C-alpha cells in the first residue's frame, strides 16, 4: 500500500512532538511576577517605579523539522528537534528578582505563538512562549 507522502509528513510532525504544549511559568521565583497592573491584594495600583534593577527577555520553545522522501514504495522521514526549555525563563526571572523582598517583576510582554512552514518534503514547526519583563526595587515597603 502506498502511503501518501503528505500523510507521512503530518504523522511525522506530530510524532516529533509538535502536538505538545509549550509552557511558561515562573514557579521558581519568590518575588511577584506581575501580569496585572494591580500589584497587591486589595486592588492597589503601583506607584511610579523608582528603579529598574533587572531586565528579562526570555523565550522558551520547541522547533521540530521533518524531511520526507519517497524511494519507490518506501517513505523515509528524518526528523530533528530543538528545545529552549521553560526553565530558562524561570532562571532569568529568578536571577532578576534575586531574593530581595523589595523587588517586584512587572511583565511588559507575555507572548505566544506557533508557525508551520514547508517546502516540498521539508517542514519546520515551531511554537514558543516568551516574556519581556523588568524588575523594580521599591524604595520603601511598609
Amino acid at each position, binding site marked *: 500500500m502506498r502511503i501518501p507522502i503528505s500523510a507521512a509528513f503530518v504523522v511525522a*510532525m506530530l510524532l516529533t512532538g509538535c502536538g505538545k504544549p509549550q509552557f511558561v511559568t515562573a*514557579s521558581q521565583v519568590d518575588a511577584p511576577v506581575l501580569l496585572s497592573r494591580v500589584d497587591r491584594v*486589595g*486592588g492597589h495600583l503601583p506607584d511610579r517605579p523608582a528603579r529598574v534593577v533587572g531586565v528579562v527577555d526570555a523565550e522558551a520553545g520547541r522547533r521540530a523539522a521533518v524531511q520526507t522522501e519517497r524511494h519507490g514504495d518506501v517513505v523515509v522521514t528524518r526528523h530533528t528537534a530543538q528545545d529552549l526549555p521553560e526553565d530558562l525563563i524561570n532562571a532569568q526571572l529568578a536571577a532578576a528578582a534575586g531574593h530581595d523582598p523589595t523587588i517586584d517583576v512587572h511583565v511588559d510582554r507575555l507572548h505566544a505563538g*506557533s508557525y508551520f512552514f514547508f517546502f516540498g518534503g521539508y517542514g519546520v514547526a515551531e511554537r514558543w512562549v516568551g516574556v519581556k519583563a523588568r524588575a523594580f526595587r521599591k524604595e520603601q515597603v511598609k
Partner: protein
Amino acid sequence: MSRIEKIALMAVACSLGAGCAGARTDIVAPAAQYPVSLSKGVRDADGTMVPEERKVTVATFHQDRTAWGTFYSAAKLTPKTDISQAINQQVRAAGGDAVVNLRVASVHCRGAFWPLVSIIPVWPACTKLRVQGDIVVVIPKAPGEGEDDGPPARPRAAAAPATRTPHAKR
C-alpha cells in the same frame, strides 16, 4: 535572526511556492482587579510579601483561547488576548484575592500541518493558548502580627476557619 527577519524570510519562501501558516499573540490583563502573578509570590495590601502559610488555594483559574493569524503569520488577527474579564469573573466567583502560579501554554492547532492549504496566503491559521493559575485567598494577619515577612503567629489550621474572608476590594 529576529522575529521580523524570520517572517520576512518565510514570506519570501512562501511566495516561491512553499507554504506556511501560523499565529501569535500577546497575553495581557490590563483591567484585572486582582494581582496576577506568574510566580508564587504576591504582596499583601500593606505591601509585604504573603508567606505560604497565609495563602489558601481555593480554585484553579482556567482559560482557553485561540489566536488567529494569516498571510503566513505576518498578520495578527488576534494581536492581544485579554484575560482580564475571565480573571475578574473567576476570582470573584471563587472569593479569591489573587491569581498566582499563572501558566501559559502554546500549542499548535489541530490541522496546522496540512501542507496544501497552507500555500494559500490568506489561509487562517491559529495557535491555541491554555492559561491556568491558582486562585488564592490570603488569610489576614493576626492582630499584632509582626511587620516582617515571617509566618503568622498562630498555626494555619487554627486560624483558617475563622479568617478565610477575602480582603475587601476597592
